[in-house]
């Protein structure tokens, strides 16, 4: 039989039992729909995290005090080295790969001015910070080397702070009070949004680290050192180099542990990425179970159908159908049903993930790959679960099939 005839015959017999076909397909529809929605949620979360990672900066490397945690367990309290301004300067001076370095001094504080006061984080950084974070200004400018060296009382506001203290206006040139010290606002940063873990990256103000250490907090400890390379290819070498420079700077003996950690921004995000990947897989796996159940539904109906249509099979064989013709007919029927169900499932999954993202605000991503895989999968389900009933039909003896009542 020609392929087109086969599909026609299969469609005809599927259409002869509309209600049953519909119910049979429902399993596949729900299964595929669920897989699409679940994968859309998972991939949406992943792409959101990727976006957030990209807002961290470009080719960023982070040096933090303390040994790296492995499997969530710190490798001992003795391996802890404070970071110093000297470290940052040494990295900047000696590194071949790193183009920008900034220490980060950090303190929680109240900023008073404009509409009132706002509790936020004050970060003392160097002029390179803006380059490392790849952070554009909305108003004004970032501070320069001279202001850094002279410990000027200047400040760049994060977007959230600016919006809260000076809603809808350009505060450049105005003065705010930080710990009773008047500080001039010289710039406002563009918004960057939330991090993957949900902290507002814009709820922050920046001042020269010299100013923060001496005038604004009295807290001189360095929270982290940020660095960046011109090209992402240099990141691994830069990390190695920074490590070597740090070890030398701290006089760490050959076999002692580092006591600090050098990571790049992907390392930072990896844990979170890993979690969502697992989540995506888990969701897809759960959804696949309903696809499996749908497949078993098809098999069940096809078995019933073979029994019910034994006489039809007998007639077809009596007029010259080979076993293979009967096998193909039933197989095509189950494939048509599962693929049709899969297609409807894809449509429903699509609509479902859109509605879901509108209702919940979650990011959902439906890619053509997912659709192809879903369709291929449902065809596979049709073949897999249709094969046994089809083979049973094909193996029937013509005379016995004809006698069947």
């Amino acid at each position, binding site marked *: 039989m*020609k392929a087109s005839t086969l599909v026609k015959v299969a469609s005809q017999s599927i259409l002869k039992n509309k209600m049953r076909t519909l119910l049979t397909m429902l399993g596949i529809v729900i299964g595929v729909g669920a897989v699409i929605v679940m994968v859309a949620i998972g991939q949406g979360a992943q792409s959101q995290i990727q976006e957030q990672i990209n807002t961290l900066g470009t080719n960023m490397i982070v040096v933090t005090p303390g040994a790296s945690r492995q499997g969530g367990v710190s490798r001992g309290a003795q391996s802890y080295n404070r970071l110093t301004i000297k470290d940052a300067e040494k990295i900047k001076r000696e590194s071949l790969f790193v183009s920008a370095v900034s220490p980060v001094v950090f303190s929680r504080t109240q900023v008073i001015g404009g509409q009132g006061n706002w509790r936020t984080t004050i970060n003392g950084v160097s002029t390179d910070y803006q380059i490392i974070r790849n952070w554009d200004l909305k108003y004004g400018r970032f501070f320069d080397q001279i202001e850094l060296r002279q410990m000027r009382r200047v400040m760049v506001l994060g977007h959230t702070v600016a919006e809260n203290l000076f809603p809808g206006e350009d505060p450049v040139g105005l003065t705010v009070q930080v710990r009773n010290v008047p500080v001039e606002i010289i710039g406002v940063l563009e918004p960057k949004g939330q991090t993957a873990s949900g902290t507002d990256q814009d709820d922050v103000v920046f001042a020269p680290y010299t100013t923060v250490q001496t005038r604004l907090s009295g807290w001189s400890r360095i929270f982290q050192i940020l660095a960046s390379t011109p090209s992402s290819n240099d990141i691994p070498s830069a990390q190695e180099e920074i490590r070597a420079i740090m070890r030398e700077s701290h006089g760490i003996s050959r076999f002692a542990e580092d006591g600090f950690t050098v990571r790049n921004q992907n390392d930072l995000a990896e844990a979170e990425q890993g979690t969502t990947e697992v989540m995506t897989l888990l969701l897809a796996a759960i959804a696949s179970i309903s696809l499996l159940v749908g497949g078993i539904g098809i098999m069940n109906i096809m078995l019933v159908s073979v029994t019910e249509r034994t006489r039809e099979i007998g*007639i077809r064989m009596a007029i010259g159908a080979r076993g293979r013709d009967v096998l193909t007919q039933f197989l095509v029927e189950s494939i048509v049903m599962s693929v049709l169900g899969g297609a409807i499932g894809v449509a429903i999954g699509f609509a479902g993930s859109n509605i879901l993202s509108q209702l919940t605000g979650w990011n959902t991503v439906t890619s053509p790959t997912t659709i192809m895989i879903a369709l291929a999968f449902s065809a596979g389900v049709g073949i897999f679960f249709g094969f046994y009933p089809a083979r049973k039909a094909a193996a029937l003896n013509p005379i016995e099939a004809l006698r069947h009542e």
Partner: protein
Amino acid sequence: MERDLVMRTQGLTKVYTMGNTEVHALQGVDLTVERGEMIAIVGASGSGKSTLMNIIGCLDYPTSGTYYIDGVHVENLSRNQLADIRNSKIGFVFQGFNLLARTTARENVELPLLYDRSRRKIEVRKTAEEALERVGLGDRMNHEPNELSGGQQQRVAIARALVTNPSILLADEPTGNLDSKTSVEVLALFQELHDQGMTVLLITHESDVADCTERIIELRDGKIIEDKCIEAAKAHLTI
């Protein structure tokens, strides 16, 4: 004149085994059929008529014996080869019509052509319509079996048997489910096909049906007990 044989069986036996008991449905049947013959097989119920017919129709295997159709040795063929013989050389008409439900007359008749492997490029639709016209159902092509009378359904079945232009037309009590008037019409159709050169082998219970054929074979207990030609008295059916 050289005899042109359509089929020949020799020593055909069929044994059904049911638990401990064996039923010898056929006990050595020798039968030759010439091209263009019309033969009636008669016999009491249980005498093995259907069993013989199913073997001739390649629906069933004999227990022993040989069977040729159109020069092809059938008893050793595979399932697939038997399917092809059924498709190309045999037209089978059943007592219960055996049409596909919810399928139009034309589609039913097209079916054997769709399974045809031997011929290429047959105009399926046209050939099926011609066959339906031949049995006088040119105006019922798009009717489904449940929209047709018994006689009409049997005509569709006959058209389906004819459509591949088989070597032999087999009919197992084709009028068994029909009233007497319709039976006469259906038999007249067989007669007409026979007159057009078709070889017809039919099983019947009714003696008046048998009387309108040229040759009557009687079975009893799986054996042919009589094989008579009534050439002279070649009776034609009157409607």
